[in-house]
């Protein structure tokens, strides 16, 4: 029988005491796990809101406005008109955007970072009705519009296809496979989008080259949506850099409420984490306390162990092994309790956000709890090792 085996045997027969001793660690770890789990759920929910905002930046021609409408219905204005952006500005815009993101995030990797989606808007007569046709880069647009769901058919694959907004499809009774004429060029409806609640429902999306050819606008785009896939990307700097370097365009950083929310969330997180840290510190004192009590309760045991041949080191080891067991048990229980707490409290804070447990927090919980338990045990264990055998018997 080795020393640790003895401790394990001893402790498994005193489960209640171990549980009692680990209460401090459990509360500390539970609070931290709960805070982090709730924070992650909140962040995920805000991130998905953030995604809905789509572009972080819009690049438009310096001047131009057009009323957008479907039939007699006015749908506000869009940046179109004779003044368009030459397509050959795209590489330059990408270079500026990716360069600034790399700089801000310290990324070295080559390749495209931001999603840069050019658009060409035209008004077209389809089946006798005036419809906004948006020429898009199918791949980039797909990355930008993460909320798009194709309800019927499929997404754009070949140049001579169209993806139709829900309202357009309903009003004009379009079906997948229908053929429509676009300024004389015939294309097929590949898919119909689910309703999005935005003006996308009133538009027809066609690969940009097809629109450029059909409407004689080769090499031109109406606007460019830029999406930098990070909430901390320097959108304002990118906008002013584009405005400064490329004449004839106007880049605007989309001020995002979500970003402000993110900032708030970060502040709340920091506050809660500080609170959790204090809880853990208090828990740590709790462990010191229980360990001191344990040492006191076991003065006699320690004396006997010494009398039958235990060295000071071995006494310290016995208490440290106990600390590890208490830490692992406390970490496990803390993780479970914290996750449960998050499930209960999370929806109250973030209004019905879906909290999900985070397996990645499990191991750190164990490590943290064990670390705390060991730290809290060092002094009591040292005290225990100094107990004199004869004194331990006298104190009976």
């Amino acid at each position, binding site marked *: *029988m080795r020393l640790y085996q003895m401790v394990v*045997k001893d402790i498994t027969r005193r489960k209640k005491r171990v549980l009692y001793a680990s209460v401090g660690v459990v509360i500390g770890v539970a609070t931290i796990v709960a805070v982090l789990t709730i924070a992650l759920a909140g962040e995920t929910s805000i991130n998905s809101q953030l995604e809905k905002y789509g572009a972080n930046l819009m690049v438009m021609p310096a001047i131009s406005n057009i009323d957008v409408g479907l039939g007699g219905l006015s749908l506000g204005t869009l940046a179109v008109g004779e003044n368009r952006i030459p397509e050959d500005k795209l590489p330059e815009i990408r270079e500026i955007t990716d360069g600034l993101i790399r700089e801000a995030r310290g990324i070295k990797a080559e390749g495209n970072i931001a999603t840069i989606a050019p658009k060409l808007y035209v008004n077209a007569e389809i089946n006798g009705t005036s419809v906004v046709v948006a020429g898009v880069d199918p791949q980039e647009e797909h990355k930008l519009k993460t909320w798009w769901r194709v309800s019927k058919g499929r997404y754009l694959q070949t140049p001579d296809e169209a993806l139709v907004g829900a309202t357009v499809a309903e009003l004009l009774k379009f079906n997948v496979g229908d053929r429509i004429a676009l300024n004389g060029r015939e294309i097929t409806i590949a898919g119909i989008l689910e309703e999005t609640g935005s003006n996308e429902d009133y538009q027809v999306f066609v690969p940009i080259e097809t629109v450029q050819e059909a409407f004689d606008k080769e090499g031109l785009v109406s606007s460019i949506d830029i999406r930098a896939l990070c909430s901390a990307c320097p959108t304002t700097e990118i906008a002013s850099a584009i405005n400064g370097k490329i004449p004839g365009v106007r880049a605007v950083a989309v001020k995002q409420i979500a970003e402000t929310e993110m900032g708030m969330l970060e502040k709340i997180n920091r506050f809660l984490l500080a609170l959790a840290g204090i809880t853990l510190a208090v828990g740590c004192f709790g462990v010191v306390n229980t360990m001191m009590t344990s040492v006191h309760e076991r003065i006699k*045991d320690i004396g*006997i*162990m010494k009398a*039958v041949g235990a060295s000071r080191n071995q006494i310290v080891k016995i208490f440290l092994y106990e600390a590890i067991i208490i830490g692992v048990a406390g970490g496990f229980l803390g993780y479970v309790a914290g996750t449960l707490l998050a499930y209960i409290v999370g929806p109250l804070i973030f209004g019905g956000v879906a909290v999900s447990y985070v397996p990645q927090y499990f191991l750190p919980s164990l490590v943290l709890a064990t670390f705390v338990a060991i730290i809290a045990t060092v002094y009591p264990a040292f005290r225990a090792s100094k107990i004199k055998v004869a004194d331990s018997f006298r104190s009976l």
Partner: protein
Amino acid sequence: MLEIKNISKIYGKEIAKVVALNNVSLRVNEGDFIAIMGPSGSGKSTLLNIIGGLEYPSSGEVILDGKRIDNLDEKDFVDIRRRKIAYVFQQYHLFPSLTALENVMLPLTFCGTEKGEEKALETLKEVGLEGRAEHKPSQLSGGEQQRVAIARALVNSPSLLLADEPTGNMDQKMGREILGLFYRLNKDGRSIVMVTHNPEIAGHAKEIIVLQDGQIADKISQKGGRQ
């Protein structure tokens, strides 16, 4: 094998000073069976603790196998406790969460012996408890618990066995059984120093030392002890 010379032990200071032992000298030879008697507070247990290195004397010398051990620090004493001197207590002091076998294995564990099970079982057999190896102390009678404690003391084959009123918690019948065990161990060559109140027990020792107020009041040699 063990000699104590002019041992004094003083607790406290000045007005609160208590002289527990005053200039006590004693020899324990191999194969001895010494009974220490005396009224409560006469210093019996203190003397036993000093012999066993559980307590340091205020002055005087303790010599074990020709070497002074009263000035050893705790670290060096650990080895003596592990190999040479073993203790049996009045209250048995077994660990309630461990089985009889595990309690006996404990000293081997502290010595770093990983596979002490066989040795521990053998020792349990020696005290007649081989059938109780897996029992917890709470499932054993007082006499059985004390026998487990004796087995625990014997497992490392110490040359000197110290016992502090080992039968103090038992009825006469059980006490006799335990004493029988001690006699047998003594016959097998182990030196025993036992603190006791019981004149009947003391009557069977080879030597009786009577303490009074921290001093040896009487020394009675009984040739051969209980034969």
